[in-house]
């Protein structure tokens, strides 16, 4: 009984914390979602184009894409952010915090998505492509009508996992003081000193976003399953 009362009292404190700081928290969440949305759209486009270039071994583009993927995947994203924000001004390139925020996670997500889409396209059985060609489609037509819809479905779960990591990585913009959710929460914490409330709200918000996205994988998978897999 006392435990229940204690829990209720804590929830009350968390709620009044949210009410008092609602405006800042909402602004921070909005920035996190905006940056994530731009980066995810960009990472999707990069993954689609470079993934196809890798799968079809298009000369030069494929090799350059491989170098891009290996550099990004084998170096920490935080160092990449430092490079863009703290090192580039040395050669006269000054980027705003907002630009670095979406650009860094977009470059990072694009590299992982290139691998996701490459694997997806390469997993499309050759006989499907041959069937497309036999039906009179040219190379591009076969890609758009056969390889893309089937390979895209195969790549979907791993690419959504990449998007989830993109959202989580926007928290690193704390180091460049871009006021997304994490930076905002730490600023509120510095002013109010309501540490436990701050981190409860911060953690729950991220978990809601991440859990919603991972639940969407299962929903989409059932919805987009190929007829022969759904049987």
């Amino acid at each position, binding site marked *: 009984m006392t435990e229940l009362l204690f829990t209720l009292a804590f929830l009350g404190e968390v709620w009044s914390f949210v009410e008092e700081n609602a405006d800042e928290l909402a602004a921070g969440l909005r920035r996190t979602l905006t940056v994530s949305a731009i980066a995810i759209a960009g990472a999707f486009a990069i993954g689609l184009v470079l993934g196809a270039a890798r799968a079809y071994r298009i000369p030069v583009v494929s090799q350059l894409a491989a170098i891009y993927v290996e550099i990004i995947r084998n170096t920490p994203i935080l160092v990449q952010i430092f490079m863009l924000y703290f090192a580039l001004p*040395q050669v006269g390139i000054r980027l705003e915090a907002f630009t670095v925020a979406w650009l860094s996670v977009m470059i990072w997500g694009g590299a992982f998505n290139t691998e996701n889409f490459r694997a997806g396209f390469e997993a499309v059985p050759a006989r499907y492509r041959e069937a497309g060609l036999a039906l009179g489609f040219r190379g591009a037509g076969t890609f758009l009508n056969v390889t893309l819809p089937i390979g895209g479905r195969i790549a979907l779960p791993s690419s959504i996992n990449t998007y989830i990591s993109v959202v*989580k990585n926007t928290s690193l913009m704390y*180091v460049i003081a871009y006021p997304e959710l994490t930076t905002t929460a730490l600023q509120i914490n510095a002013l109010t000193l309501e540490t*436990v409330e701050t*981190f409860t709200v911060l953690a729950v918000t*991220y978990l809601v976003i991440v859990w919603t996205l991972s639940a969407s994988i299962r929903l989409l998978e059932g919805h987009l399953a190929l007829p022969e897999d759904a049987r």
Partner: protein
Amino acid sequence: MTLPDWIEPVARYMLEEGLANTLKVSAVALVGSALIGITLGTLLTIHFLPTRALIRLYIEVWRGLPILVTIFIIFFALPSVSDRLRFDSLTAAAIGLILWGSAQVAEATRGAVQSIPREQHEAAAGLGFGWVGRHVFVILPQALRRLLPPIVGLLVNIIQNTTIAQVIGAPELLETAERQVERLTFEGEQHAIEIYGAVMVVFFIISFPLTRLAAYLERRLI
């Protein structure tokens, strides 16, 4: 050819202090993640609802949170709960990485243990092993083969994610690099590109062979 004068002290500090701490935290985090993750993942295969629900929650929470937020919680929030939960920055980072890493290993272990055929369980039980002996001596040694590629992959991620400790001022490679960049800037020299570039090169030299190894093991062992 002689190197410019500023390089030697910078490189010495970054390697002796920064890289050493990066490798130390990585090693602790890898061992901790593997031990806790394999234990939790094996327990997750028991069909007992309360333990499964608890372990599931552990996995989903620490996998779901950004590692930076986990490390902030350990470093800033825990001391305000109890003074005994005050950790130095390197320890806080290692704990944060272990929570995240063990969640990854637990999920992989569950799959690996469940991939071992039922006959292996039955044969071990027939030889008189109890649940613990059966798993420690028969099931896990076989599951470990399947676990090796994801654990090498995890090592790469742990090594790269140690840089997040920079945010709470832990003297790992990126933090030592930043201190040197600031010192040189203070003395009127700009070397951010060279120094952060060197940090990228060091991480690449460590990570690239390991990602190759993980891909090779995946092809060989499965």
